[in-house]
């Protein structure tokens, strides 16, 4: 057999988390600059991350709240290009599986097949396109399948049951549950209906369920895992740290380590 595909690597990362939820921090590629974002990505791995979600900065990020939006604008202003972000992915891939987060126009600009080939050539394992819903995804999914890249779909609390089932059945790598009705950003508390929603989403798919949006503290990460997530994605909290800290790499390493500890600690009440 040939080398493991991107899809294989993602499955392996979830499996090797061994009973605790996999931790997947989000990295805004090129923010605050290319060199620092590489250092941040490595700090994620050092801190105990299982996978990394690598964001491609985009001019018009409709799913993102103020922190990630501003970081993307800043990365573009600093000159980040898609080619550089792919290189960043390739540099991180030996440490942990990389899942690229790119808005649809970034993918369209190069074409589905070319983009999927580029991902594989850069040892990137998966792709999340937050503005490419089920109806628009078939061609890109086929292109990704051909390269062994996992096209990870999103579901939201607003997704009705029948649609959830259709999305879940086509998920590759993992299913990305958006924890709340809104854009990315830290919140004071998890959504009250989260456990219910996660139970519905988990039942709709055979791949692991990861939850993201609004998770910013170790306690929230642990609670999301307790509520049924096999993976936890942390975004704005870490991007904010990268923006504010004097030593971003050291700062995010500490946050990721605290999150990993919280996920490893046996929970008081395990829902699933």
């Amino acid at each position, binding site marked *: 057999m040939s080398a493991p595909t991107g899809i294989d690597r993602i499955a392996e990362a979830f499996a090797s988390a061994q009973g605790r939820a996999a931790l997947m921090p989000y990295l805004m590629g090129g923010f605050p600059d290319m060199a620092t974002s590489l250092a941040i990505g490595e700090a994620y791995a050092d801190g105990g991350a299982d996978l990394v979600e690598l964001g491609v900065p985009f001019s018009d990020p*409709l799913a993102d709240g103020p922190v990630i939006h501003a970081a993307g604008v800043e990365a573009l202003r600093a000159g980040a290009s898609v080619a550089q972000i792919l290189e960043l992915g390739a540099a991180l891939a030996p440490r942990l599986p990389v899942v690229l987060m790119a*808005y649809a126009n970034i993918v369209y600009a190069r074409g589905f097949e070319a983009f999927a080939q580029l991902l594989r050539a850069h040892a990137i394992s998966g792709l999340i396109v937050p503005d490419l819903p089920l*109806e628009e995804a078939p061609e890109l999914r086929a292109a990704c399948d051909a390269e062994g890249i996992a096209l990870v779909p999103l579901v939201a609390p607003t997704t009705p049951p029948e649609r959830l089932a259709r999305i879940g059945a086509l998920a590759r790598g993992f299913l990305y549950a958006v924890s709340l009705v809104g854009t990315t950003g830290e919140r004071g508390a998890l959504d009250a209906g989260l456990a219910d929603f996660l139970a519905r989403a988990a039942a709709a798919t055979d791949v692991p369920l990861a939850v993201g949006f609004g998770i910013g503290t170790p306690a929230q990460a642990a609670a999301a895992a307790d509520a049924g997530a096999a993976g936890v994605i942390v975004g704005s909290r870490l991007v904010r740290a990268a923006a504010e800290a004097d030593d971003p790499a050291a700062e995010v390493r500490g946050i990721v380590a605290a999150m990993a500890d919280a996920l490893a600690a046996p929970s008081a009440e395990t829902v699933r």
Partner: protein
Amino acid sequence: MSAGLEHRYGPYGGQYVPETLMPALAELEAAWLEAKRDPAFTTRLHELLRDYVGRPTPLYLAERLSEAAGRTVYLKREDLNHTGAHKINNAIGQALLAKRMGKPRIIAETGAGQHGVATATACALLDLECVIYMGTEDMRRQKPNVERMGLLGARVEPVEAGTRTLKEACSAAIRDWVANVATTHYILGTAAGPAPYPALVRDLQRVIGEEARAQLLEREGRLPQRVIACVGGGSNAIGIFTPFIDDPVELIGVEAAGEGIDTGRHGAPLTVGERPGILHGAYSAVMQDADGQILEAHSISAGLDYPGVGPEHAWLRDTGRARYEAITDADALAALQRLARLEGIIPALESSHAIAWTLAHGGSELDLVCLSGRGDKDLAEVIRRLDLGRGGAGEQGVDASVPGGPAQA
């Protein structure tokens, strides 16, 4: 067909939005399909358009403009609608629909402020909460409209991102919708965005073309040779084009050439015709770089200052059914002055692009031009530009740059 509304126009259109919004788009489509077949709804809409908006708007034979152009030119007077532009046709319709869907809160984006004022007006009338997103550069350029929205009880949310114009206002409105979709309807102001908006807005704006076609047939006993409209997102243009689609009539959309197509500082994605892309939920003509980053548009008119365009226009262009050209800031400004002097009508800077195109292009005996709005909102910006351009040379200096005229016709 009793199926849904169109989602695609050739390869263009679609629904490129976060999953959170997909059920809301489906709900909106179903609600519109139902409402437009419900006599209670259509009667109420018709009454409001007649008694409140002032429809039908006049079709005006602009005799002195015709003389200057060397051909007969009729103006469809959307500037005479309540609130001063065609935008109210769509805003009233969607606000009624929101009421029917039980959504108490309305959001909208605005560039020129005309759609914001129209939406704020409809919300006051129908007792809906109203939040309008507007770039701070546009708030400066279109100050009277900001004040109007406030008086009407709307909250204007300033948007500071990017060039602080229409594109960013639209992105901010979509983000609000993602967060508040359960209680909120987004009244998109043009025939762009994810399905079903392009079809919904076209359905609500086609009244422009339906009236104009009947009025012209009655007056002239024939169809126009050309129908001309400015194109920002494309709502007044698709509204006046649609009823003429199957007629032997030339359809011409006029985009903003800004400081000149060659300078890159324009708002003319259809005219330039490069690789299409995705902006604000639809695949269509768009200004972008090689990586797919959306570029910033530029136009003197806030309503045309947008790097994208509605998907149906991209398809009308590709199929050759409509033609798209662009007019510069300077020519639009000159056309505004020219119409003011010739006809006593001060058009919106957006509409002035269509007037300028007509003045500059012969080859027709009978033109129908959509005068999409009035220019009151633009006065401060127009005066500022004229003072700059005049540079002490007096008014003649400006007049000399007016395009077209009898010699060119």
